[in-house]
């Protein structure tokens, strides 16, 4: 039950409005950049990114100072935890939209194009030569490509992420036991594994584009492949940055066994990204 013996309400802050302006610049910049190929507009986008980074430093700086000076109660810690959990839930729903697209294409659209269900005439009249199969290596429109096997890089990447989850957990346990050494090493390893994962993913993309003819525009197989792995990759990037920041904070001696919400949030995020990868590995690569 809620207990309100001490609740800190922050005073006015400049960061929210800075953040809003940053997001606006990012959105508007990206939009004009994409729709007009106007290189000028890319500057708006990058300016937005800079503003957001500036905002994040400022905002988290405030939070960290407040936290270190003991202004936060257990109740506020709960607020942060719950907020973070719901944020992760929203991320799950975002990925669900793309997984939904994947399942729909595989289980409904492509069979229908091949004449299944009440779509016999679709196949007969519109796409008589099309054969339904997954992965969709040749589309109804006639684009062909090759499927990414799950062995090789993807498998290695899976192992890397799984290990990174373990090292992160180890770091977490050490933090709770107050063992700073293993904490630092565990977290350092996790960051390293994240970077390796990203490097390998870039390799995989280059391989796909250069050797396999698998691109973003090679039909719905390529679409779902790149958007799912791409958004996952963006999340790994973000996760790695978060963990790196935590690493720096740990070097500065932040966090105590009792109070380490920041660390916890980062680790939740990392585990979430891991679970998304497992789903990806199963549904995008293997099945």
């Amino acid at each position: 039950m809620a207990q309100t013996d001490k609740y800190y309400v922050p005073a006015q802050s400049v960061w929210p409005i800075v953040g809003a302006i940053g997001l606006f610049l990012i959105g508007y910049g990206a939009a004009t950049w994409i729709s007009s190929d106007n290189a000028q507009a890319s500057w708006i986008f990058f300016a937005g990114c800079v503003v957001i980074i500036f905002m994040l430093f400022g905002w988290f700086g405030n939070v960290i100072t407040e936290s270190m000076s003991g202004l936060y109660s257990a109740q506020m810690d709960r607020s942060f935890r719950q907020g973070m959990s719901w944020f992760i839930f929203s991320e799950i729903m975002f990925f669900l939209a793309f997984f939904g697209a994947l399942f729909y294409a595989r289980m409904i659209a492509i069979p229908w194009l091949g004449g299944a269900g009440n779509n016999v005439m679709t196949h007969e009249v519109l796409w008589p030569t099309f054969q339904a199969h997954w992965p969709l290596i040749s589309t109804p429109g006639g684009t062909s490509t090759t499927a990414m096997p799950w062995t090789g890089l993807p498998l290695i990447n899976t192992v890397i992420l799984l290990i990174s989850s373990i090292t992160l957990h180890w770091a977490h346990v050490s933090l709770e036991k107050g063992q700073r050494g293993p904490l630092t090493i565990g977290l350092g390893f996790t960051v390293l594994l994240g970077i390796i994962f990203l490097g390998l993913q870039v390799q995989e993309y280059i391989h796909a584009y250069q050797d396999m003819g698998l691109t973003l525009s090679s039909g719905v197989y390529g679409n779902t492949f790149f958007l799912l792995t791409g958004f996952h990759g963006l999340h790994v990037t973000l996760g790695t940055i978060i963990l790196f920041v935590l690493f720096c904070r740990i070097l500065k001696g932040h966090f105590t066994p009792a109070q380490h919400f920041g660390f916890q949030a980062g680790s939740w995020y990392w585990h979430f990204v891991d679970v998304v990868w497992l789903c990806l590995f199963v549904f995008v690569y293997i099945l």
Partner: protein
Amino acid sequence: MPVNLTQGVTDISQQVYDLHMTIFYICCVIGILVFAVMFWAIIHHRKDKGAKAAQFHENTKVEILWTAIPFVILIAMAIPATKTLIAMEDPSDADITIQVTGSQWKWHYKYFGQDVEFYSLLATRQDQINNERNKRDNYLLEVDYPLVLPVGKKVRFLVTSEDVIHSWWVPAFAVKKDANPGFINEAWTRINEPGIYRGQCAELCGKDHGFMPIVVIAKPEQEFNTWLASQQQKIAEEKAAEQALLSMNMTMDEMMTLGEKVYLKSCAACHQANGEGLAGVFPALKGNKIATEDVLKHIDVVVHGAPGTAMQAFAKQLKLKELSAVITYERNAWGNDTGDLVQPAQVKAVMDQKDL
């Protein structure tokens, strides 16, 4: 204007109408009961009449009751609805099959196995729409070539689209089916009475969504068959004329006059009558490279369309003569004075290079 749903001219549309009325009456009865109780309270239980508030605030029995009763009513509604729906979604054993294809902003009808197909466009003239002339009776609900169907036969429609989603809707048949590009949806009807039935596209499909009506003429079987035969003959003759054309050369004047006509009918909706297009949506043709440089490229775009854009392939929609005329027109109107004269044979050559 009628104020209720049409009863239509098919068994199905009659069933749909009955279902509509049943649900409507049920809703009315529930509504009247609920509002009667409420207004009773409003009139009698008011403070200025000295009403003292009771303090009850729950009653499990009543609450269960008014959860259960609506549930039962819903089941009563669901049974006839299910029956009608299943009947509507069964296009099997049809007597004739017609492929209905929507595109921006016209319908195309193709009688399966009959060698008859044609486009059907809005016939209302622009000056009526612009209020420069009095509007006629079937304003916006008239087309140049109506779809003709036999009475008493099960007609199956294969509905699809070439560009965006349209929806083929004739209220009198209670048929509304989305035309999805790349997929074929099936619907069917069996018309009971001869007559002219009008409908409209019922899915937002861009600028002229409001201007793509549907007209169906239902004829007794005999008359329908005569009509079909006459169409087959007409289409065969047109094909022959097309052949003859290949060896003919047309003059610039002839081309420009016909070209303008075709342009206004088929191209002006997007590129505008003055050839200036709509900035950011439809490109201008005036001064456009395609219309002033390589002729073959120009023919190719008109004939095959530009994939990934709103530019349709006109090979099927226009006759050879019309194609060459309109291309000539585009290359010479609005100060595009290239002087190029595009002949039917040239167009045909481009057409045949890429298989259609």
